[in-house]
């Protein structure tokens, strides 16, 4: 397993090179003229800018040189300039990344907590109404289009009953807390501003739930089936023979064993979360990289969408690596080696 992780670690730079190459190919395909992918149309008439960009990205050079320049720029963190915001894509992304991370992490927490709870309930009361309701709730979450459930829940909880505030990270005209982590909830706490924390949390709650609900299905399913399998294992019988009540067998014995398969799917879950985050942000006007990507895609702003794609891939690969490491850590049969 350790060897596997090392192999994965070695593979990551190569995979990133592959990702960058695909992105390069896509950028070259844009509207036939690669320059169009780098210079906003409005600036095309300005020869100074055009020449500067040409030189920076080596557009007057042959294709192989352009490729090397492109990769070199990426390595320096230069993702090009967005057509729409006219700012470096890396700056845009850096500014918006915390919002997305805050949403995704909150959703991950909600999804895992909900999935574990529902999985435990349905394994404990297998075949009962509780089991059925838990599974249906989880299944619907992963089958609904997230942009639809977001919309409907926003209508119900915000428009109809005003239980949660509307879209965005904070009410309009409220100053965000001083930037430490970029997570408004945590920064508000660090600033000691409880009312601001409350507002940030209230804004976060619904989008995070919508996104978390979407992954609840996968988690519930894996937790339930691992627990039920665990309850029929020999070690569960041993625990019962020791005098453990069924609840202890479930939580003390089957659950720790279910953590291993759970960890292996968290990486997969992360892919779901990124997909969902893009759409959730679009619905909730959440100022993260997802809504940025959606706006970029709608206006065919290739540098922006390409930049988000590369950043997303890096996050994705890192999440998978973390999953592998967590898996090795959780499984004592691997730890000794």
């Amino acid at each position: 397993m350790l060897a596997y992780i090392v192999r994965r670690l070695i593979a990551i730079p190569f995979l990133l090179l592959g990702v960058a190459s695909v992105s390069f190919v896509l950028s070259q395909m844009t509207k036939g003229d690669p320059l169009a992918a780098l210079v906003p149309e409005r600036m095309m008439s300005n020869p100074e800018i055009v020449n500067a960009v040409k030189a920076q990205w080596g557009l007057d050079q042959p294709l192989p040189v352009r490729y090397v320049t492109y990769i070199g720029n990426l390595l320096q963190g230069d993702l090009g300039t967005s057509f729409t915001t006219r700012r470096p894509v890396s700056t845009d992304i850096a500014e918006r990344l915390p919002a997305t991370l805050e949403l995704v992490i909150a959703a991950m927490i909600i999804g895992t907590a909900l999935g574990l709870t529902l999985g435990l309930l349905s394994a404990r009361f297998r075949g009962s109404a509780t089991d059925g309701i838990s599974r249906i709730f989880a299944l619907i979450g992963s089958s609904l289009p997230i942009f639809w459930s977001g919309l409907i829940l926003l209508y119900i909880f915000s428009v109809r009953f005003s239980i949660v505030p509307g879209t965005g990270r904070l009410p309009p005209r409220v100053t965000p807390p001083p930037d430490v982590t970029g997570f408004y909830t945590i920064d508000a706490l660090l600033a000691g501003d409880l009312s601001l924390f409350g507002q940030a949390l209230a804004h976060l709650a619904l989008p995070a739930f919508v996104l978390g609900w979407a992954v609840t299905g996968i988690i519930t399913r894996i937790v339930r089936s691992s627990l039920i399998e665990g309850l029929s294992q020999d070690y569960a019988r041993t625990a019962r023979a020791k005098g453990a009540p069924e609840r202890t067998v479930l939580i003390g014995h089957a659950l720790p064993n279910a953590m291993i398969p759970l960890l292996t799917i968290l990486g997969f879950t992360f892919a779901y979360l990124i997909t969902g985050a893009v759409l959730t942000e679009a619905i909730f006007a959440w100022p993260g990289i997802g809504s940025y990507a959606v706006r970029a895609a709608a206006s065919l702003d290739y540098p922006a969408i390409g930049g988000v794609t590369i950043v997303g891939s890096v996050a994705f690969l890192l999440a998978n690596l973390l999953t592998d490491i967590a898996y090795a850590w959780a499984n004592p049969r691997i730890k000794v080696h």
Partner: protein
Amino acid sequence: MTAPLLDIRDLRISFQARDGSWADALCGIDLSLEPGKVLGIVGESGSGKSIAMMAFLQLLPRGTRVQGSAKFKGQELIGMPASRIQRIRGKAIGCIFQDPLSAFNPVKTLGQQVVEAIRLHDRSISKRAALKEAERLFELVAIPQPERRVRQYPHEFSGGMRQRAMIAMALANKPDLLIADEPTTALDVTVQAQILDLLGDLRAELGIGMVLITHDLGVVAGIADEIAVMYGGSVVERGPTDPIFYETSHPYTAGLIGAVPTLDGTGALKQIEGTPPSIFSRPDGCAFHPRCGRAGDACRVQTPRLEPHGGTACACHFPLTTLREPVPS
């Protein structure tokens, strides 16, 4: 005469088949065990020997029908509510299972698992004290370096050491009865002998009553006070150990003894022809008759009852009468 430690009367267990019909896995058996004695239950897989014990501990899967009576120190276990049987399981009755690798939880240290066994029955013992007790138990079952071993996971133990740890865990709350289900089957032959010696020593030292379940008569020969031979869900022969071996009445028992390799090399290894019946297709009459060389017409229609015959009780229409010479061991 002291009250029996375990007294099983007409215990009957049925499983439901996929088509909804019920099949008897255990067709009403009687067994009893005095305190401090060792009862060996011998039979092939499917004979019902393990599920008899699992049944009164209520460890069988839901949907199993259990009828009859099983009294432990006078308390009826069949139908006892879960909350009460939980206080007996692991406290007054300890269990040892066949494959100690799968029987231990792979993601917890052995120390944690023994500590759990102790603290499930006495919350007042601190985790630290329980771990000390676990180390003492490991020492009792001759696991070297117990203070290091309690921190290890099951896969870090050898098969024999794991079984010792299993025994230590079963002894954690000083049980009156130890049920060992095929405790040596998964082990190498030399390790088997060590584990049996250990069980014998523990019995002598602690005076624990034991039920030793095995498919191998040789395993119980040296340790059991009484032996019950099971076939097709019934006890076919029952008696003190010596008569079972030397005044064998049931052809099946005789077949099993034939299947025991004798140390002196006389008597070639013999195998019983055929395979034991599945519980869903058990023959009428005596369940053993299709494989029995002595079977007559009565065997095909009438189920024989357990009746005294020679030194044992035997359920056979045509019991053997030959006496064997004791083989010096």
